[in-house]
């Protein structure tokens, strides 16, 4: 392994990666692989980090960047890596916010954005479907539980955290039962 990256190199690298990180977390992993793996990080380590980020709350890409930064040079590097990574998008969003805020004070945007809202709602549902599918696979009866969650959250609001906990514990319990009966 080469001598560690300087903080300056770290910031520049993650800023670059952060400006190219389109289309989900796999592109970020790809970029990290091309730049850091083999010199500063092993492929196996990266794979473990990715697996960790999938069981944590928050977007995978950011969690991966944080862990990679930490691996490279500790806590300070982790913070710098994350900050540099999200900086491009944050700058763009702040600029957009300023413009948007001004525009929305003069015109009523909602009549222009009906189609956009419809499209976004479809995309969110599709997202839910894809996530469900990736976990449920062929245990089709679990879709019933998805439907139950849809109905329950109506009344619970932020209390939905309880659903998350109950479902999580339910999964744990079911997993234990299946293991006992030899199905695993």
């Amino acid at each position, binding site marked *: 392994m080469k001598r560690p990256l300087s903080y300056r190199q770290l910031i520049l690298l993650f800023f670059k990666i952060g400006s190219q990180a389109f289309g989900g977390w796999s592109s970020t992993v790809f970029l990290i692989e091309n730049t850091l793996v083999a010199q500063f990080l092993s492929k196996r380590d990266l794979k473990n980090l990715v697996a960790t980020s*999938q*069981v944590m709350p928050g977007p995978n890409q950011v969690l991966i960047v944080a862990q990679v930064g930490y691996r490279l040079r500790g806590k300070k590097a982790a913070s710098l890596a994350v900050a540099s990574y999200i900086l491009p998008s*944050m700058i763009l969003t702040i600029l957009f916010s300023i413009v948007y805020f001004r525009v929305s004070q003069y015109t009523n945007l909602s009549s222009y954005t*009906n189609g956009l809202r419809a499209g*976004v709602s479809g995309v969110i549902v599709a997202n839910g479907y894809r996530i469900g599918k990736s976990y449920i696979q062929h245990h089709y009866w679990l879709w019933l539980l998805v439907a139950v969650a849809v109905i329950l959250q109506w009344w619970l609001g932020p209390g939905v955290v309880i659903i998350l906990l109950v479902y999580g514990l339910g999964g744990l319990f079911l997993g234990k039962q299946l293991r006992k009966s030899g199905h695993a």
Partner: protein
Amino acid sequence: MLERLLSVMFSMFFISAVAFNGSGQFWFYELGVVRTHWLNPTDFSSFLAFGFATPGPQVYGLATFIGYHEAGVAGALLATIAICTIPCSLAIVVSRYFQKWLQSESIDHFILGVGVAAAGLLVAAGFKLLRSQPTSIYYLVIALGACVLNSKRRVKTIWIIIVSGLLGVLIR
């Protein structure tokens, strides 16, 4: 101004701590649009759409805008910092000290359960957003179209959103 900033930051801490398996979009809708009035459905859609157009995580743009809306540029910066703090710290601590625990099968089962819940929550958020629309067959068709095209991942999300937006303006 300070209470608004603190309120935003605490909400960002909360959302970041519970948004498992991609349910961030649900939490931002629930807390940003339904429970508080930081965002209306138009703001939510516009910034989520913008999130698809920018690099990096899509929902962070929502955090940035909420921060900006409540407390200007400082709010935008602090809200964005607040949304990353807990997940990143947690990931580092867990990957450093709890390796064994991560490799246990129980975690996978727990996450599977949470994933099922997250799927339901996202579907609910999509429905809520659609219901905030004026009722019209056209918007329903656009939503369905977007949903079907995006499920198969064959069409890039950003194009689906741009086309939906344009159709909406035309239909008007």
